[in-house]
């Protein structure tokens, strides 16, 4: 066996396939990790790289097996005094060892990157994957590849068959899955890798059943291997009884271990059906009634420590929970994303409150009578891993390279969600969508009182009450507020390259204006945010998130994802003073700041924008520049810019400043007189 194993390893190491797949996988991993997006790398490793790796291995094994068969490479070995099974096992073991080594190296690379970057890693989970899940799945793909290579003569057909088995199994797994009921046992062998980096521990298995019974996959692999032995024994007119016995044993192992998957699966379905059966009839009526508020959470006082570099959030604080119904609720339930670990929960007096935190559900073991309130204090922390972005109001947090964006309804603090009373009263059936607390339909109820102090990052706190995605948004970046001159929103990860390009172009366009206004050392940074998060964005309606920052209208930019529209976005920004000056509460202010923008355009571009030569504010400043020089005109502009938050950004103040700086110039005087008489526009 050693001989054929050694020979197989030699062949594999000298063939390009192993290296192509390995380097391709590593390259893909490098690509997705660029920008330190380890989170994405981990996810992509699961979603993209592992299927790529396994499928690549499968197809190459089919190819080499087919080639050896067509070239009769084993003809010379047929009459050697060497048992066929040892030869086959050696060949399979060699193929397997080469690929499993590469697999382990790739996962080690992932682990090391995690360590270097400082992300918490669940080593036990990773070890279980290295030592059990990936090796067993590879055993399956190796046996399948060798068998298909032997029975299918045409290479193309072999590839198609391999891809169909692999992809078909994965698609079948998804198709046959039941929401909330676990995976069906069929095709389970091909579902390896379906897990997501969601928890504080870095990696968590979503479909827990995948790893519960690797014997099932092992059984499949042995079944295929025994079938291969049977086939080859028949070809060589050797006794087939041992192979047949192998098939039998493998089938027993497969079916026997499948029971371990089928039974819990069936049990969960039965339990769901039983729950439905046991429901009182009236609860259906309740379920059909509009969902109303059951619990109110308010008077939040939170201290949050953010570390945008490592995407960590640590929070402590207090809030008040009130039962707003007329019935007693034995186990009040809040929403807190499973990403976070709640380490402490007490009443205001320090008395511990028992709780269960499973999934996104935080269940308190503390009854609340009708109208009763409970003051709570708690501490929780977690790493905010990149999450799948969902459509509509069911929002998810998305992490960019250097930022944290947390919509309130994502559950970054304990929230009272508008869940139905039947659910709170525990008479909801399992799997009923309206009763699933993990689905924060409609988002949390906006608290009337919410005080927050944040350390560790620049902060932006916004309130978007009344909209579909209501609640509190928390944005953390590692930049100082003066560093941040721009925030571009509405950019999904897929449009990241476009965003970078746009930022560069935008910075170039803004360069001439930077000398005119202060605080623009760093013209624009892109904070990557998926547009779903800021659907009905609150940004444009609130006070400036970053003093001295140019805050673009996220919604506007989000819908301009065609390159051709970029110029139009610039135009919007440059033409619209409110985008630059962000002060447009009145018509007069709008006209005034628009005049400033028109002047800035004239000064930097050497020509008027459209008919803006008729803009009296712009014309006044242009006369200042013509008579007294650019620096004088720019100084006036900077002074006016400084008045933005003083309430003195007015026409009168402008006239006053211009008089002081350039009142002795006759042409400026004439322009001032016209402006005083006619107004800004």
């Amino acid at each position: 066996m050693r001989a054929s194993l050694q020979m197989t390893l030699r062949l594999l190491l000298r063939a390009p396939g192993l290296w192509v797949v390995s380097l391709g996988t590593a390259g893909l991993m490098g690509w997705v990790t660029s920008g330190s997006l380890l989170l994405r790398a981990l996810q992509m490793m699961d979603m993209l790289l592992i299927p790529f790796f396994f499928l690549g291995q499968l197809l190459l094994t089919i190819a080499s097996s087919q080639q050896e068969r067509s070239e009769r490479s084993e003809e010379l070995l047929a009459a050697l005094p060497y048992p066929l099974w040892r030869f086959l096992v050696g060949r399979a073991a060699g193929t397997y060892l080469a690929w499993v080594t590469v697999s382990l190296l790739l996962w080690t690379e992932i682990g090391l990157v995690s360590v270097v970057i400082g992300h918490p890693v669940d080593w036990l989970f990773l070890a279980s994957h290295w030592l059990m899940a990936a090796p067993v799945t590879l055993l399956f793909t190796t046996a399948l590849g060798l068998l298909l290579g032997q029975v299918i003569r045409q290479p193309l057909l072999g590839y198609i068959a391999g891809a169909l088995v692999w992809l078909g199994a994965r698609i079948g797994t998804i198709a046959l899955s039941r929401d909330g009921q676990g995976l069906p046992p069929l095709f389970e062998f091909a579902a390896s890798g379906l897990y997501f980096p969601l928890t504080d521990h870095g990696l968590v298995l979503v479909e827990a059943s995948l790893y519960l019974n690797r014997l099932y996959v092992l059984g499949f692999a042995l079944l295929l291997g025994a079938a291969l032995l049977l086939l080859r024994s028949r070809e060589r007119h050797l006794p087939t009884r041992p192979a047949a016995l192998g098939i039998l044993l493998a089938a027993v192992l497969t079916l026997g271990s499948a029971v371990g998957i089928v039974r819990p699966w069936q049990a969960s379905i039965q339990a769901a059906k039983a729950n439905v059966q046991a429901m009182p009839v009236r609860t259906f009526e309740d379920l059909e009634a509009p969902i109303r508020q059951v619990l109110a959470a308010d008077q939040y006082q939170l201290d949050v420590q953010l570390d945008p570099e490592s995407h960590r959030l640590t929070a402590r604080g207090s809030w008040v929970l009130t039962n707003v119904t007329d019935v007693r609720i034995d186990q009040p339930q809040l929403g807190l994303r499973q990403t976070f670990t709640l380490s402490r929960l007490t009443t205001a007096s320090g008395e511990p409150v028992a709780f269960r935190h499973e999934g996104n559900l935080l269940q308190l073991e503390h009854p609340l009578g009708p109208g009763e309130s409970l003051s709570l204090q708690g501490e929780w922390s977690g790493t905010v891993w990149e999450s799948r972005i969902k459509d509509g109001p069911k929002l998810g947090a998305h992490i960019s390279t250097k930022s944290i964006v947390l919509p309130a309804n994502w559950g970054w603090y304990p929230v009272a969600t508008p869940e139905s009373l039947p659910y709170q009263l525990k008479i909801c059936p399992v799997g009923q969508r309206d009763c699933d607390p993990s689905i924060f339909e409609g988002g949390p109820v906006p608290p009337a009182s919410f005080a927050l102090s944040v350390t560790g990052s620049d902060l932006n706190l916004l309130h978007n009450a009344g909209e579909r995605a209501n609640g509190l948004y928390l944005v953390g970046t590692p930049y100082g507020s003066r560093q941040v001159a721009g925030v571009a929103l509405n950019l999904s990860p897929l449009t990241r390259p476009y965003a970078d390009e746009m930022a560069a172009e935008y910075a170039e366009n803004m360069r001439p204006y930077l000398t005119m206004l202060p605080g623009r050392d760093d013209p624009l940074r892109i904070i990557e945010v998926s547009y779903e998060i800021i659907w009905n964005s609150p940004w444009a309606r609130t006070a400036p998130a970053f003093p001295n920052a140019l805050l673009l209208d996220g919604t506007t930019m989000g819908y301009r994802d065609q390159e051709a529209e970029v110029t139009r976005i610039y135009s919007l920004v440059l033409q619209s003073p409110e985008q630059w000056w962000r002060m447009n509460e009145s018509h007069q202010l709008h006209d005034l700041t628009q005049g400033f923008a028109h002047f800035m355009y004239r000064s930097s571009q050497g020509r008027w924008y459209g008919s803006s030569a008729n803009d009296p504010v712009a014309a006044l400043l242009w006369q200042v520049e013509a008579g007294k020089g650019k620096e004088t005109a720019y100084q006036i502009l900077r002074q006016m810019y400084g008045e933005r938050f003083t309430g003195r950004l007015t026409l009168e103040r402008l006239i006053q400043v211009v008089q002081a700086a350039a009142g002795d110039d006759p042409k400026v005087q004439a322009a001032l007189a016209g402006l005083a008489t006619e107004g800004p526009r």
Partner: protein
Amino acid sequence: MEIRFEGVQKIYPGQVKALDGIDLTIPVGMYGLLGPNGAGKTTLMRILCTLMEPTAGKITVDGIDRLVEPERVRRILGYLPQEFGLYRRLTAPEYLDFVGSMKGLSGAERRRQVADVLERVNLTHERRKPLGGYSGGMKRRLGIAQALLGDPKILVVDEPTAGLDPEERLRFRNLLADLSTSRIVLLSTHIASDIEATCQSVAVMQKGRVRFTGSPTALMQAAAGQVWQLDLPAAEYERVRSTLKVVSARRTSDAVSLRVLAPERPLGIGESLPPTLEDGYLCLTGEGAA
């Protein structure tokens, strides 16, 4: 030491009778198995090499019952099939080392034998070259080299010279002749000259049966007095060719020089020639252009 076939039959599915009661004894030395394509030579060899089971009959190899103890037979047997492939990315020493391991050779002895057989088949200078770059002759020689590992008592070679150029063919024949001094070399071919040049004994097979066993000289004698040379005008040749069993025909501008098999002087004008092995073979099997 000898190989003995007794009443060996092989019937393929569909009642295709590939071997029909083969009785044959093969002694030490080079033994030729001659016959047209489809005669059953390869089937017989594959049965001997344990790659196929006979439908009936008995085979003993150096006293070992082939049907009862195939593994023991494999240990004393080296086999070079008619068609085979090699692992393209290995070198000759690596490949032979692998085969040596499968034959149970260990460590230093395996390395010694690998170097030895490479030398014997004259591939030492090509030892660093990947097998994918070998010519047809080199591949055949490597095939013999792997068969020789373990110093087998029996060497079975199936159509070894097919597709080789004359020089390689000559070299291969000499190699086989050298190897036959101390072992049984069973050479299967449909090319009579291969047998004539190397074998002490020969068996002629046709349609699954043994038609002749004996020395090449005896096979030649089967055609004694039946080989004639005729020189005919081209037009005359075209007229009578269907009545003649022609072994060879050489055309000139307006005449044809023929080598013909016939029990009596053909057309009353032929000149008697000494027979060759090919004549004997054709005379026996009834093959040849008629």
